[in-house]
């Protein structure tokens, strides 16, 4: 156990994966030599450690980066490729959606694609909507792809290691706002299972589900809610596909209420799936309406004043919980 930042924990995972399996290589724009000299970058120092054969800087070619991952994984390698910012995954999406996600099925199970795509996400650094746009629902909607979203340094390491050695294509979303966050990280090869949510706090009145940096927005709302006498059960989803349905349903059956919080647009966001799932499978347990906290249906704005409107804050979480408690 030692203190590491989120970025260092990712770096630790990549290092361990490359040490234990010669078939692991990493590729992407600036994964070897980066314009950033930041030890909190996930790929920092890997070129020096593992050399140019296994740490591949690529041209600015997202389709080729993803194609590299699909083709190489089908040949038995374990590629870990980076798509620099989440919105750029649109350029790679044919390779991921139509190939990584479908060719295993269409081969009748003869082919597999043990690839990992790391993608940086996040709102709040003023770069606007072409560098910030959380597209997890697109991925979750596409069969054959898994998607995980760590919120702590420990899970960053554990989920990335599990993703790399999972036999299926996994997209690992890294919230940029968390790279410098520190936490306890166990040493060695740790694996966080996919499809297992983490119970952050136990409560009796309302279940709140979040993932990634949105978890901390929830935690900022936790205190004012407690002070108002509302006991919340907070769940860190960690993995969207596969989804830990049992954890959410069990919690909602206990509390009778659900609030989902994410930074993506609310409309057709991942929260809609969770709301629908609870309505279908735990309707009898509900004591109030399921509430979703997310962004309005606008591109991620650039000005700090606009970003504030876009990004859900703790006050939005408090409001949503109070609304579902009204009934």
């Amino acid at each position, binding site marked *: 156990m030692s203190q590491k930042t989120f970025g260092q924990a990712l770096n630790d995972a990549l290092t361990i994966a490359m040490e234990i399996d010669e078939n692991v290589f990493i590729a992407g724009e600036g994964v070897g030599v980066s314009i950033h000299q930041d030890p909190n970058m996930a790929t920092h120092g890997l070129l020096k450690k593992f050399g140019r054969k296994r740490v591949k800087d690529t041209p600015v070619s997202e389709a080729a980066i993803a194609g590299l991952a699909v*083709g190489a994984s089908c040949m038995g390698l374990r590629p870990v490729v980076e798509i620099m910012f989440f919105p750029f995954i649109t350029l790679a999406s044919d390779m991921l959606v139509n190939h990584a996600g479908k060719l295993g099925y269409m081969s009748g*199970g003869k082919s597999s694609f043990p690839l990992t795509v790391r993608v940086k996400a996040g709102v709040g650094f003023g770069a606007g909507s072409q560098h910030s746009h959380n597209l997890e629902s697109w991925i979750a909607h596409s069969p054959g792809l898994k998607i995980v979203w760590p919120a702590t340094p420990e899970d960053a390491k554990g989920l990335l290691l599990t993703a790399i050695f999972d036999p299926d294509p996994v997209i690992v979303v890294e919230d940029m706002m968390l790279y410098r966050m520190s936490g306890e990280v166990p040493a060695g090869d740790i694996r966080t299972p996919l*499809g297992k949510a983490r119970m952050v706090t136990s409560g009796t009145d309302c279940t709140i589900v979040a993932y990634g940096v949105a978890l901390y927005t929830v935690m900022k709302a936790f205190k004012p809610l407690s002070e108002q006498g509302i006991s919340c059960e907070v769940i860190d989803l960690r993995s969207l596909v596969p989804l830990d349905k049992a954890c959410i349903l069990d919690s909602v059956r206990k509390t009778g209420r659900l609030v989902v919080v994410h930074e993506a647009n609310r409309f057709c966001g991942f929260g809609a799936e969770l709301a629908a799932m609870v309505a279908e499978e735990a309707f009898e347990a509900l004591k109030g309406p399921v509430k979703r906290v997310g962004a309005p249906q606008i591109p991620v704005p650039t000005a700090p004043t606009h970003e504030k409107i876009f990004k859900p804050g703790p006050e939005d979480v408090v409001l949503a919980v109070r609304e579902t408690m009204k009934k």
Partner: protein
Amino acid sequence: MKENQIVPDLQIRLYTSMILTRKFEEKIVALSQEPYRMPGMQILANGQEAVATGIVSALELEDVIISNHRSHGHLLARGADLNSLMAEIMVKDKGVNGGKAGTLHLSVPDLNVLMTSTVVGAGPPLAMGAAFAQQYKRAKGITVVFFGDGAAAEGSVHEAMNLAGVWKLPLLFVCENNCWAGAQRSEEHCAAQHIFQRAKGYDMPGQSVDGNDVEAVYNLALELVEYCRSGKGPALMEALTYRMRGHGEQDQQHYVDPGELAIWEAKCPIRLYRQKLLNDGVLNQAQIQTIDQDAETRVSAAVAFGDDSSYPGPETALTDVFVQPPSA
């Protein structure tokens, strides 16, 4: 090792492969005219047999093939089992992919026909990944990807060629230029007349060949495959041929000049080669008939095999999405 000169034994194999492909696809044409016999789109390479046969015959089994929607010739030339191939095209459970691929997404990883993509232009980046794996593992094999002149308009093809050029990957790009992308002629979708000239921009050799001359295709393929295998990097080969049956069997080719079709019909690669082998005394008429008859017999047996198998059971619809499916 592949013969580096054309000998009678090779000539007979080239002819046999082409006629088998033709008979196989002619049978698909016939069956697709019967209602519900051949579900899905049937997209054939009738008239382009010399490209598939010529190139695949110049490969070793360790070489990887990435194919596209016009894949039957590539698979047959590689020696794929006719029965399970036909059953798959008929979408039956004894098909090579259990009835989950159909005619468009056939793959036979056991024979290194690793993937087929019908997303036009998607093959080259996939192939680049496969070739990277070969370079990474220091394997002897190279990768060959087949794509069309239509696909050459996709940005993904540029990305793959550029990266293959930068990393000097063992990858042979084969453009089967059949003059058409959908209902658009080459000059309507391709700014320059020849695709192979693009090779210069990626620092790789590029050459074109008469795609209806199987020996010319074989010879050039041997040369470029050897180049890729030697570690010098990728190469681009353009085979000039013609799409005889339209984009797919639903295409009535109302936009095609019948005179042009007749010209290319006269350049049928199989007919030309048959004549050459007769003229050169490699085969006589009776031997040709035996080979043709044998191809027909094998194809008929494959259809019978397909007829004897069933559509995949409903329980298999939900499998193979993940290797390690969610437990819930």
